[in-house]
């Protein structure tokens, strides 16, 4: 890795901005000593290549990732989580090259499950996707800075997102497993509960779903599922129009409880939303007549999702009236797949006094 020269940290910051190495916000200057400390935290060789990142095809070395962790404001303890997220994005099934180039606004949403959340203080409660949560903010930002720097991402030149969204700065949360009535996402995806797993999916910004449930209404759960499905599969979404892609539903604890009391599990919630996430063929044709909407037969209802597995349901946030849905880009060779990678704690090293340096 080549280190730049600057008179002081202010000059170094301006140089990094000028070279397009930042996200436009101030960064911690990745000095050689700081980067070395984060390389050690990874437990890997600095020159080890984790893969190549499109669209530039840059080499994602451990030292590059470490430098991005420094810039993002990470603690050394965050490195294994960032490393898992980077590995997820580098999985060919993630289609990072296409995702980073598209005109769609998609951003990598990082969902953390398992013991890692407590070990590195990933938040899953009130405002988990907002400011004020250091680990969430810096882990998600480190991933984005790694993708930006290795992928040669520059708005309007190589990243053609027409507008983008704020999640392209950082987009990371944990699942509130401890208060959820459902099995955690990673367990539903085939991992063990005591494994720490990072799931990354390209996603739109969170869309609020207001659902005021009357406790005496026997159809309360049905109404909630309808509302979630309508918002997730909204007629303007790529999922609805392309009939593809995976997408995310974040239930707040109160809404999750309503569904659990009605007998739903995480799997059946996903299945119910996939089943209800439909639009009339005539409506799709009306709003996007240029698309070749095929007629699948007599049924005029067109599903946005092909399988319950395409709806990723988690619980997070504070309890109240609002859950969130994140529709997705739904394109690319693998049609916007979520990729899960286990956090490897075995390679991570403890660094005595790391925080004081």
């Amino acid at each position, binding site marked *: 890795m080549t280190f730049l020269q600057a008179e002081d940290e202010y000059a170094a910051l301006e140089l990094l901005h000028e070279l397009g190495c930042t996200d436009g916000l101030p960064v911690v200057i990745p000095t050689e000593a700081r980067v070395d400390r984060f390389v050690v935290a990874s437990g890997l060789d600095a020159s080890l290549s984790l893969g190549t990142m*499109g*669209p530039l095809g840059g080499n994602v070395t451990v030292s590059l990732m470490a430098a991005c962790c420094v810039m993002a404001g990470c603690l050394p303890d965050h490195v294994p989580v960032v490393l898992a997220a980077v590995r997820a994005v580098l999985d060919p099934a993630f289609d990072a090259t296409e995702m980073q*180039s598209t005109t769609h606004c998609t951003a990598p949403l990082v969902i953390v499950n398992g013991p890692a959340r407590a070990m590195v203080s990933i938040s899953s409660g009130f405002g988990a996707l907002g400011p004020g949560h250091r680990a969430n903010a810096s882990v998600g930002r480190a991933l984005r800075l790694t993708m930006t720097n290795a992928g040669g991402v520059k708005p309007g030149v190589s990243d*053609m997102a027409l507008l983008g969204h704020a999640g392209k700065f950082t987009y990371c949360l944990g699942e509130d497993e401890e208060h959820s009535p459902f099995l955690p996402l990673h367990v539903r995806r085939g991992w063990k509960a005591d494994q720490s797993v990072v799931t990354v999916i390209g996603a739109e910004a969170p869309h609020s779903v207001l659902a005021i449930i009357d406790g005496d209404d026997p159809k309360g759960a049905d109404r909630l599922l309808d509302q979630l499905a309508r918002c997730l599969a909204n007629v303007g979404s790529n999922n609805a129009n392309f009939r593809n892609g995976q997408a995310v539903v974040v239930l707040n604890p109160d809404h999750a409880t309503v569904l659990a009391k009605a007998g739903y599990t995480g799997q059946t919630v996903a299945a119910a939303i996939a089943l209800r996430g439909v639009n009339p063929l005539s409506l799709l044709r009306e709003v996007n007549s*240029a698309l070749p909407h095929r007629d699948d037969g007599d049924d005029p209802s067109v599903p946005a999702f092909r399988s319950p597995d395409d709806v990723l349901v988690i619980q997070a946030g504070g309890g109240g009236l609002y859950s969130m849905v994140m529709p997705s880009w739904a394109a690319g060779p693998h049609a916007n797949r979520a990729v899960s990678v286990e956090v490897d704690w075995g390679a991570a090293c403890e660094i005595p006094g790391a925080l004081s340096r």
Partner: protein
Amino acid sequence: MRDGIHIAQRGTPAVALVTNDFWEQGNFVATAAGMADVPRVQLPHPVASTGRTRMRQIALDVVDDIVSALSR
């Protein structure tokens, strides 16, 4: 651009049609893919959603450039 590159890599003559808003990205992708000279022709932006009449006119305007690029 990437489609044109993939087709050219398979040995089939190809010309990428790139609108001027995406011209710089096309150059970036071609360079990143190691095929900086892959043939491409610039179109005005936008082409999509502009109607058959305008699209036909754009096609007439660039058809000679496309043939020329394929003939090089």
